[in-house]
């Protein structure tokens, strides 16, 4: 039996501890906002926060997470829309097919938490998630906007 803290809830989960966190989230817990794209930590569609750090859950055995706090896209903000990154994303109408966007948003949110005013290089080096629709230009613009929103209202940036 796995004990995990997901989006603020302590859960007992009947999954093998070697199961990647991604599949525990999707198939055992039913949180499907976190996506499968590659299974080898290449594409970033499965990005979640583990104690606030952007983590590719497809390659992380769920049993290794321990008591760390897991946040998925469903837990990023209470209404699913009000985190500064989500607000900025809506403003720039970033998603196309949208499949990678949970991961992109989680990666961006973690970056902004660590570096509230990231440079272009910070963004380029940190946001390595794949988007096949090619929304990168709008992701860059939205991160700038999110940084500005967070600076204007620091409390709203807290997860």
């Amino acid at each position, binding site marked *: 039996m796995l004990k995990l803290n997901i989006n603020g809830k302590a859960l007992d989960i009947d999954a093998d501890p070697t199961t990647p966190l991604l599949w525990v989230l999707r198939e055992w817990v039913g949180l499907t906002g976190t996506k499968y794209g590659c299974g080898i930590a*290449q*594409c970033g569609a499965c990005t979640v926060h583990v104690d606030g750090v952007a983590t590719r859950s497809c390659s992380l055995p769920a049993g290794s997470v321990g008591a760390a706090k897991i946040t998925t896209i469903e837990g990023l903000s209470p209404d699913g829309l009000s985190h500064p990154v989500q607000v900025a994303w809506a403003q720039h*109408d970033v998603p196309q097919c949208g*499949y990678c966007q949970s991961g992109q948003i989680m990666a961006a949110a973690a970056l902004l938490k660590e570096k509230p005013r990231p440079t272009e290089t910070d963004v380029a080096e940190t946001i390595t998630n794949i988007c096949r629709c090619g929304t990168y230009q709008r*992701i860059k613009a939205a991160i700038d906007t999110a940084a500005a929103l967070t600076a204007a209202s620091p409390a709203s940036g807290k997860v």
Partner: protein
Amino acid sequence: MSQTMQLGRRFFLTTAAAAGGGLSLGWSLPEAAAQSTAGAELSIWAVIQPDDTTIVRIARSEMGQGTLTGLAQLVADELDADWRFVKAEYVAPEVNLANKRAWGDMSTGGSRGIRTSVEYVRKGGAVARAMLIEAAAAKWSVPATECSAALSVVTHTPTGRRLRYGELAAEAAKLTPPTEVKVKTPAEWKLIGRGVKRLDTADKLSGKTVYAIDVQLPNMVNAAIAQCPVFGGKLKSFDATKIAGMPGVHKVVQLDDSTIAVVADKWYQAKTALAALPVVWDEGPNASVDSAQIDALLKAGLDAKEAALGNKQGDFDAAFASAAKKVEAVYGTQFQNHATLEPMTCTAKWDDGKIEIWVGSQNGDASLAAAAEAAGVKLEAVKVHKHHLGGGFGRRGQQDYVRQAVTIAKQMPGRPVKLIWSREEDMQHGFYRPITQCRLTAGMDAQGNVTALRARLSGQSILAYLAPQRMVNGVDPVAFQGWNKEEFGYTAIPNVLIDHAVRNTHVPVGFWRGVNTNQNALFMECFIDEVAHAAGKDPLEFRRALMTKNPKQLAVMNAAAEKAGWGMPLPKGVFRGIAQNTGFGSFTAAVAEVSVSPKGELKIHRMVCASDCGYVVNPEQVAMQVEGSFVYGLSSVLFSKITIDKGRVMQGNFDDYQVMRLVEMPKVETVLVPSGGFWGGVGEPTIAVAGPAVLNAIFAATGKRIRALPLGSNDLGST
């Protein structure tokens, strides 16, 4: 998406009263008229609820290209709906079927979503508007001509009385739809041409959008699949007993002579068990094929006597023989996978002779038909739940994964089975962009004017593989996209010969975003650059001289050049390249600015793209498609390739099938120069110019011509 997405008109009307009243309005379509049901109301495009919510029905599929929003704009504009009230929902394929395909073509590809349905969806909106006005006029006992509609309100102009659409809808629905309606002129458009936000964004930011891979149903099981790694090979044997005790495993299912699946409670369990399942393949006659052999096959095609004619004017041979100066080059591109980020997936449930599927498909009708065929039931026994696609790019026009899910589900009666392909399976069992080589030859007179131009394609034909019945006397018209008579941009060249030596391999091929303009524009635009260089002329000026008979194309190229500041000084070390193309009914051009370090590191600083798609429905959406198509196009030009060894695909995942990431993203500026009078495609046309613009800029920077694509390990360095 609301639940009403699954409801047909009849069903909706019978339940509307219980739901508080509503209006379903439609328009008879050309197809319906052809079935001698002219004038009958068979379709519905808009549903208006008492609170003014206006639901627009969408027959095409949303895969990121924005068609959901664009089509809704078209209907809502004619309806004079307030955009704030507009929502969109899919028409269910079985409802389309039951209503004699009243919603028309559901296939979503070839950048046709808007341009081929623009007339009938707008009429659907106009009919709705006319009925609402008539209902208001009847209520006020005034002539309809004294009433006008705007922002979901009908106003009686002389008295200023107003009624909301939501108040009128129930009465309007009882009226007979007018058979003749006039759609607006461009000057009257209020929503068409506006960069309104997409309708599908919010749920994509919160993780709430349910893609097919996210479907969760009571009692559901999951399936992982393996197909013979060598195309054309077969399944020889497997030993199901070896995995029988593994966690969650229910069953091993052999689907056909080359495919096997494991069904388990969870997909991760199915995948893990499949990896442990001993399988022996009979790899068959293709097991020794490799990319070198395929390259040699295509190379021979470049010299073949016989070839399918694509475009011809004048007498190339005679003109070339007397040319003062000659230029020749051979270009080549490799197979490309679609690599949609959501791998192939479909859920199916077989119950009491009926089949139900949950799928992201580029063609809802085809998914329904494929499910019926695989289940061995009539079309009427199928129900299809359409989900937004996690990428399509042409791959989800094929229905192989639907058939597989249904075949497995038949072995698990009463239980929904979700089939998910692993990334590796997806990478190795695609319908790849065809491998293609091209020899180009040009002859010039003493003044450097091009007098003769020839392009010989050699490579695989999509139609020969997917739809041989659409081949025309051995010619695959798709192979010449961008070079057909009505598209070719250089008609001022008096003598032109373009043909195609069809060279098919055992590798499955299929439609791929922008195919075949990707390859053709790259070949032609890089080569024209070579010819310009040989003539000692500026690439832009040189093209202008060849495009005097193609004014729209020329105008677009000029717009890109002007915005990019062609001819103006650039920062030290930065160089420009240009390319133009016509395809999918639109005119496009791009200018790239790049630098290459002495070590050979490429940086694309800026790209300007100009597009004339006739009328622009949503300029923001067009800009997004330009940006996105550049990423998709440049991925294939700079990084990705599918190669073959021992008959199978050598790449397995995003570690060896590299695609563009944010760090490589240049600044992309979109210039829209809509000339009006036509509706051109948007999702694909611009992809073709990205690659050649960059490659021509690389030449300007380094003097190196990259002719074997992708750029990959080509050394651009000068040290």
